[in-house]
Each structure stands twice: as structure tokens, then as C-alpha cells.
């Protein structure tokens, strides 16, 4: 009888897992203690997170977007450094993962943009967006963590006062892609880059001529079609992540925020998040190739 091959878990990993479980259960118990009274207490302020108000600039930005963007950058840079440190001809597991990811994206870029000059830059843009969105979507909900609560009240003179309050352990982490400002920035960046590449590839006159094709009568339709691209590009990601977050928030109220959020985020964060990140970077490649080709 052949001996069954077993994967050994090292003692360090066991200790880490135990500590994680204890911390997780403790956070769940704390959540039960300091739970808000009803789900509408939280859900009522969901819309205030992303509506531009009036007042000084520090009340108009979402602090969670900045904190979580920095966290995402930290994770990506840490991964890059740890791959770079043990870089060798015979790849380790991390290096093989990174290389196969880059290879996967480069194949997609090369099949739609044959021109080598633009393929390299497009590859860099698409990979950067893909990595950022993947990490932010995954980080967005696996751990119960900090959240921000923005309340909006109307003052005596009719002006809108916005109070920002941090809540610990009441929500999942806020994904930076659940803020429309982040997504719209990237979508507009892709639009500008695609037209810049279009001018570079075809020349200025041919680029202008592409707006009055097939007949000059269609000029307004072409311009609207170009302007609609970044809107649908950013709204798709934003709606998916925000909708997933709100659904998780509403559903996890029933189990007092303890065990359901990670399970639900398995769908909304990992599956949906990965697909949306892939779609975002693929559409980036498609928009650029439509201008270049």
C-alpha cells in the first residue's frame, strides 16, 4: 500500500492561523456588543459617501479612498520587492506566478495590437490597472475592518454640513474602486491615452477624419460615442463593487457581521471582482486598439 502523500503544515503557519481565528472571533463578539441599532442606520448614509457636497475640501473627499489606496499600493510594492529579492533563472513560486500573469496579459495585448511600439506601453497601462483593481477588490472585503460614516445635516442657513466619523469593526473594508472618483480618473486617463496614441499612429489629419466617417452627417454621434466610453467604463466597475458592498452590508446584518461577510465576499469580492478587473483592463486594450488600428 503506497504511503499517502500529505502536505505538511509548518508550526509557524499553524500558530498564525490560530491567532487569526482568535482575532476574528473576538472581532465578531465586539461587533455584537457595539452593533448599530438597525441596518438603516448604516445604509442611510451609503449615498453620502460618494456625492460631492459643499464646504472645505477636506469634507468633500472620502478619507477611506485615500487610506485604502495607500494600503493597496503597500501590498503591491511589498509583493514586487519580495519577488525581486529572490529573482533567479529558476523561478520560485512567487516569481512564476508574477511571470505567468504578465504573460497572460501580454498575449491579450499582442493579439489585438500588433504594432510593437504601442503594444509595450499598452501592456504596462493594462497590467497596472489590472493589478490595482484586483488587489483593491480583494482587499475590499475579506477582513472586517474600518469603515467611514458620513452624515449629512442641513444647517440653519440652509447649508449642508457633513460630519465624518470613523467606525471600527462594523463593516468590511472599503474598496477604493467603490468610489466613483477613482474609476472615473482611470477611465478618463484611458480615453486621453487612446486618442494620443491614435494621433501618433495615424497622424493628425487622419485622426480628425475618423470623426466624420462614414459620412460628415454622423459627427455628433461619433463625438457622443467617444464621450460615452469613459462613463460606461467607470460606472460598470463602480456599480458592481458598490452594489456588492451594499448587498453584503444588508445581508450580514442578520448574522451580526460575524461569519457571513467573508462568505459573501467570496462571490462579490473574489469572483465578481476578478472578472470586473479583467474586463476593465481588456476594455482598456480594446479602446486603445480601436484608435491605433
Amino acid at each position, binding site marked *: 500500500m503506497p504511503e499517502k502523500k500529505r502536505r505538511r503544515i509548518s508550526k509557524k503557519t499553524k500558530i498564525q492561523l490560530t491567532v487569526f481565528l482568535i482575532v476574528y472571533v473576538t472581532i465578531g463578539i465586539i461587533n455584537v456588543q457595539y452593533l448599530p441599532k438597525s441596518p438603516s442606520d448604516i445604509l442611510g448614509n451609503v*449615498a453620502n459617501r460618494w456625492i460631492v457636497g459643499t464646504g472645505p475640501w477636506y469634507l468633500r473627499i472620502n478619507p477611506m479612498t485615500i487610506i485604502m489606496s495607500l494600503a493597496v499600493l503597500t501590498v503591491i510594492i511589498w509583493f514586487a520587492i519580495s519577488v525581486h529579492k529572490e529573482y533567479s533563472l529558476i523561478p520560485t513560486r512567487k516569481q512564476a506566478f508574477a511571470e505567468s500573469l504578465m504573460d497572460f496579459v501580454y498575449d491579450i495585448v499582442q493579439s489585438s495590437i500588433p504594432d510593437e511600439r504601442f503594444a509595450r506601453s499598452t501592456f504596462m497601462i493594462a497590467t497596472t490597472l489590472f493589478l490595482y483593481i484586483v488587489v483593491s477588490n480583494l482587499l475590499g472585503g475579506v477582513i472586517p475592518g474600518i469603515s467611514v460614516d458620513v452624515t449629512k445635516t442641513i444647517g440653519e442657513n440652509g447649508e449642508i454640513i457633513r460630519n465624518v466619523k470613523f467606525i471600527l469593526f462594523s463593516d468590511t473594508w472599503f474598496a477604493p474602486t467603490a468610489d466613483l472618483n477613482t474609476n472615473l480618473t482611470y477611465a478618463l486617463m484611458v480615453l486621453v491615452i487612446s486618442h494620443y496614441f491614435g494621433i501618433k499612429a495615424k497622424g493628425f489629419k487622419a485622426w480628425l477624419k475618423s470623426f466624420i466617417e462614414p459620412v460628415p452627417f454622423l459627427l455628433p454621434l461619433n463625438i457622443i460615442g467617444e464621450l460615452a466610453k469613459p462613463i460606461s467604463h467607470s460606472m*460598470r466597475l463602480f*456599480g458592481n463593487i458598490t*452594489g456588492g458592498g*451594499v448587498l453584503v452590508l444588508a445581508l450580514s446584518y442578520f448574522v451580526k457581521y460575524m461569519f457571513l461577510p467573508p462568505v459573501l465576499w467570496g462571490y462579490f469580492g473574489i469572483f465578481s471582482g476578478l472578472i470586473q478587473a479583467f474586463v476593465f483592463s481588456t476594455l482598456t486594450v480594446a479602446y486603445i486598439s480601436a484608435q491605433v488600428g
Partner: protein
Amino acid sequence: MDQESTKLIADAIIIAGKAIGAGFCMGIGAISPGIGEGNIGAHAMDSIARQPELANSITTRMLIADAVAETTGIYALLIAFLILFAL
């Protein structure tokens, strides 16, 4: 009818309108993405059955097409959130 009860009735009508509006928005808005994604999935299954060796590339393209077809449903979800929480 005095002032207070008029205000109460007005608030009740506002809440009822919000709920009905959000429900209709999501319900009608979810029809067309459902039909579209069903079509995409059906044709992808057809082509995989015809050429099983292309299953990988067909699946990735199917997911992209699904996400694009989903967009109108996501717009409906956003409008429903706006009606419920921001109006």
C-alpha cells in the same frame, strides 16, 4: 385636517413612492440583462459543444461579453440606490 396629520400623510406618501419606484426600477431593469446574458451563455455553450478545443478562449470572451451586457442592470441598481438613499 390639521397641519400635523397632513405632514404625516405627506411623509408616508414620499416613503411609499420611494419604495415602489426603487422596486420597479430594479425589477424592470433586471429583465434585459437577464435575456442578454442568457443569449450569450447559450451561444457560448453551442460553440463549445461544436469545438471543445476552443473552450478556454470562448469562456474568457463570454465573461467579457457578460460584463458588458450587465451594464444596464448595474445602471438600474445605481438609480435604485439613488432613489432610496439620496433622494
